[in-house]
């Protein structure tokens, strides 16, 4: 935001080059220390995952007899094949995909409609409605759990994926609207105003002018929503009991409970469950970083 002005104001400040060699030696030692510390932290953040991949490729005898630091001597890719074909993991994976995707589309679309109405249309209660969405960010999920369970039980939506999709949508709306708002406020209104003068209907303005213009922020919110939905645990654990509707998070929880001692299979399952997120991060890390920081900081 400030970057343009920052660039302009940037001055060629005189570099205070350390003249004597002791100082330059000291600063070298300082840099080495800094990089070592930063490197150690990076190692701690990443090593558990490397270790996970390593034991997912081991046989049980390797896991229990060899050092946990050793690499798999003969990588057991069969572990992945086994959990994918023999357990329910492929079913859980498919459920995760469609539940996540449906909830993301519903959230982004209904949040865009609200944000459009709040920022572009004239009505009296828009500040009140905006306030309702913003306060929603503070509500702890756990305090709604019992009444939600009771409600879905009464309307026969317990153990039904519709309950999950609607809950994900509702609880992601506040954050999504908050991120969208920031973008809508900075977006010039001239194009929309011109469209009004040309006699465009509101629906056409929204779908053919505003929505395409907000694609960058829609991508940001969609990926953040995707991560949250993919990883969600407490709702699905509480509202879904049939295997055929379970997603990966609660599915692997049950799977691991059944195969306590099969480390290779457990590791393979965990890797399968986190792989889509890691792939998304590899290609879209800037979008994800932007979404996480804008979502948190504007709160």
């Amino acid at each position, binding site marked *: 935001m*400030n970057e343009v*002005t*920052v660039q302009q*104001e940037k001055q060629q*400040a*005189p570099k205070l080059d350390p003249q004597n060699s002791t100082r330059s030696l000291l600063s070298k030692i300082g840099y080495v220390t800094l990089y070592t510390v930063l490197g150690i*932290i990076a190692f*701690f953040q990443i090593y*558990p*995952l490397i*270790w996970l991949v390593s034991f997912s490729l081991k046989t049980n005898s390797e896991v229990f007899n060899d050092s*946990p630091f050793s690499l798999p001597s003969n990588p057991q890719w069969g572990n992945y094949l086994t959990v994918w074909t023999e357990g329910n993991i492929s079913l859980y994976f498919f459920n995760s995909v469609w539940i996540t995707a449906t909830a993301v589309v519903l959230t982004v679309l*209904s949040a865009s*409609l*609200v944000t459009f109405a*709040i920022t572009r*249309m*004239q*009505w009296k209660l828009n500040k009140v*409605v905006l306030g309702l969405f913003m306060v*929603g960010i*503070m*509500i*702890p999920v*756990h*305090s*709604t*759990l*019992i*009444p*939600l369970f*009771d*409600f879905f039980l009464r309307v026969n939506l317990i153990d039904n994926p519709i309950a999950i999709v*609607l809950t994900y949508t*509702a609880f992601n*709306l506040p954050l999504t609207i908050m991120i969208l708002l920031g973008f809508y406020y900075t977006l010039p209104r001239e194009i929309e*105003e011109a469209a*009004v*003068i040309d006699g465009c209907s*509101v629906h056409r303005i929204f779908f053919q002018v505003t929505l395409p213009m907000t694609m960058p922020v829609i991508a940001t919110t969609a990926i953040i929503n995707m991560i949250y939905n993919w*990883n*969600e*645990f*407490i709702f699905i654990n509480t509202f879904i009991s049939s295997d055929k509707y379970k997603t990966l*998070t*609660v599915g*692997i*929880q049950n799977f691991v409970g059944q195969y306590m001692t099969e*480390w290779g299979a457990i*590791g393979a399952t*965990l890797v399968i469950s*986190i792989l889509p997120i*890691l792939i998304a*991060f590899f290609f879209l890390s800037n979008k*994800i*970083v932007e979404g*996480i*920081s804008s979502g*948190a*900081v504007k709160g």
Partner: protein
Amino acid sequence: MNKVMSNKFIIALYVFPALFLIMLLIYIPIALTGYYGLMKWDGIGEMTFIGLENYRRLITDGMFWTSVYHSFLLAVFSALSLVGYLVISLILAGKIKGANLLRKIYLIPMLLSSVAIAQLWLKIYHPTNGVLNSFLMSIGVDNPPAWLSDPKIVLFAIFIPIIWQYAGFYILIYYAALKNIPDSIIEAAKIDGATPFQIGYKIKLPLISNIIKITVVLAIVGSLKYFDLIYVMTGGGPNGASEVMASYMYKQAFGSYNFGYGSAIGFFLLLIILIVTWLIRKLTVSDEEIQY
């Protein structure tokens, strides 16, 4: 312009779906939590109104207060760890090559599901084949602890993966805020002879004080309602040694079918979070938005 853009019917149409969902699935349930807290109810049968009986029970329930204590311990722990994240971010936002890559690496655990993290750390903490105890034995510790079954250390053993999960998130936020400080301010301070330490402590930190405040709220509130890793890794055990408010509520409602009592705990959790948020904002009140 005004006529088209103030069509009441279209406004209602656009706002309704989202508003309906948050009213139905967030606000009505929140109100009902308070109401159900006044009931004796097993979740299936009839509700009986018992007034404040559940709250009276709450006050005398030792296990509940233990869980409150653990939640607050986690909150203090998380708030203190922010200092470390700040230092790391100050270093990263200085002239460090590869800072962008490093902060992305730090962020990775935050993107993973709590269940996957919990299962992975169950393996790391495994008493005999886990990577932690194997390491400790290899450097000569004869009897490394059974991290998750020792009531004295289980709570702190669980704090570690929670820190591991969220460290990158806070570093990311601080880094972004520090990068937003105009270079001209820092250059001016350098010309005036300020040391890097003075620049960090007396210029950069005050300039991002608003962000720091937000992260303190996030860390404390997030800790008070924390649930996932604890539920999966220990279920609050052994013997309540790692029980926190949310896990205790879940256990009462969906484990013992005390839905009325569980609702009372849920309502109490909501109140604590609102009060703490309000208190922190009040205590750290700032007079004006910082302008560069």
